């Protein structure tokens, strides 16, 4: 069938051209680096019931990024600095902050408010604000790419090193404490990992949509996998598929990358929810 053949050829040619573009290659590499840490971090956030805290960290990052711009510093530096400080705070006061949705929500709103104020003073362009809020992965520089790879590797190493005690502390905090685990120390360490991963993820999908690429794959993986190691792999794999497929779809449709990534994350999550409800399966 010649038409089908031609479509196939066209697709392959389109893919080849896409991967020859420097900015697309950078985007694919950045997406991979970030996805491999966002998925596993999201898995633990869902397991620990801390997804809202992760969401709030991203918003705090917005204040950091806009504040840095105001001071003439790189936005990513400000973003990372403030998410890590907020992560440390959440870790240290974690027990007292537990179930404080309103307090976290207020901090989250205030962060966006401050971000807006800083942008107002900087007379920043709408493009810059939009890039921070919704991501601009296609404009990623070689320098940012290398920073993302380093952050991701660091986060992944730290998360895997603490994953065993973190699992116990998430499932049975009393037991973990009895076995000598420092709950406060572990929770603080984990929140620092979350903060760094959030900063990295916001470079791909923006601070407002971090939830989709981090929590989406984690929640989906928890519903699909019966063991923890499998769950961590599925979460990383799903995040990678969503990020790469989002990039490719954006290339071919000219719709925003972040739209496609969030749409895919929600689609995967919804599918897993339907699968889990199937009789005899859930």
């Amino acid at each position, binding site marked *: 069938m010649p038409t089908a053949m031609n479509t196939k050829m066209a697709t392959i040619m389109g893919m080849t051209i896409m991967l020859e573009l420097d900015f697309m290659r950078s985007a694919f590499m950045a997406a991979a680096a970030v996805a491999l840490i966002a998925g596993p971090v999201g898995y633990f956030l869902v397991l620990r019931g801390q997804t809202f805290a992760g969401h709030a960290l991203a918003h705090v990052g917005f204040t950091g990024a806009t504040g840095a711009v105001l001071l003439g510093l790189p936005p990513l530096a400000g973003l990372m600095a403030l998410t890590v400080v907020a992560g440390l705070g959440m870790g240290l006061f974690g027990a007292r902050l537990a179930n404080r949705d309103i307090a976290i929500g207020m901090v989250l709103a205030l962060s966006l408010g401050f971000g807006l104020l800083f942008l107002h003073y900087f007379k920043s362009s709408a493009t810059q604000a939009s890039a921070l809020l919704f991501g601009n992965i296609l404009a990623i520089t070689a320098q940012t790419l290398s920073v993302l790879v380093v952050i991701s590797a660091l986060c992944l190493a730290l998360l895997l090193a603490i994953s065993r005690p973190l699992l116990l502390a998430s499932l049975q905090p009393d*037991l*973990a404490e009895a076995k000598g685990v420092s709950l406060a120390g572990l929770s603080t360490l984990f929140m620092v990992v979350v903060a760094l991963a959030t900063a990295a993820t916001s470079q791909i999908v923006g601070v407002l949509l971090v939830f989709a690429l981090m929590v989406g794959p984690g929640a989906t993986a928890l519903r699909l996998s019966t063991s923890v190691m499998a*769950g961590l792999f599925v979460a990383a794999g799903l995040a990678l598929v969503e990020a790469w497929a989002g990039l490719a779809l954006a290339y071919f449709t000219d719709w925003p990358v972040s739209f496609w990534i969030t749409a895919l994350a929600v689609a995967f999550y919804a599918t897993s929810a339907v699968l889990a409800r199937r009789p005899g399966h859930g």
Partner: protein
Amino acid sequence: MTVVAMDRVSLALAGRTILASVSLSIGTGDFIGLLGANGAGKTTLLRAILGMVPVTGGSLTVFGQPPRRGHAAIGYMPQGRANLPETRLKGWDYVAATVQGQRIGLPLYGAALRKKVDAALGLVEAQALARRPLAELSGGERQRLLLAQALVDEPKLLLLDEPLLNLDPGQQRRVVALVKHLHEELRVPVVFSSHELNPLLGAISRVLYLGHGEAAIGAVDDVITGPVLSRLYNAPIEVHRVGTRIFVMSGNVEVERDAHRHEHEDGHHHGHDHHA
């Protein structure tokens, strides 16, 4: 042989005295029913033996040494607090995660550990349960898994915190019979905290009753009496026996039943006894 020795021990939590100058000893043959109202300090006492709560006065020794966290010879089953997300994580993985879960690294389980987990699941007859997703299990079934977890390292002392909480009478009977069987089969001393005395009658060797900073330990007939409990509750208490059952009454209110109802109202925060 003495496993736990307390000599004029005082315990406090956030400045509030929980136990004041309590002396007692728990031996290798003991199966102790730990009773008392909410906030009487049942969980705090267990946590002190585990080294999680500092002793504010007197001397407490466990296996002849001061208590320390992470003692491999103590099997501990905390109060079941189910806050699990929707997950297909299996019961087996839940038990495995608790075994040497304090160690740094990945949650990977070698052949030796797998064998230990399977053996512990066998002891509580939960092999079939362990193949099912955790989210599908009832409270009682999860408690069986928690009990298996406490048995993995072949403990020389079992501390069980409210294993009967939120179980129906049939499940309660099965849990008590199972623990009694383990106590006899493995020759392991047990401290079993509970709101209710009746399900434990016939299984326990002694009762340890806490109230208002004081404690009474001894045979059921010596401790569950009007004068002793009136002192512990700081209120006039009458004890009525109907057949093999014992009813502890304050005026016309049944003390245990009241405690239990209170627990249900607070279903989402069983933590409060744990902090008090």
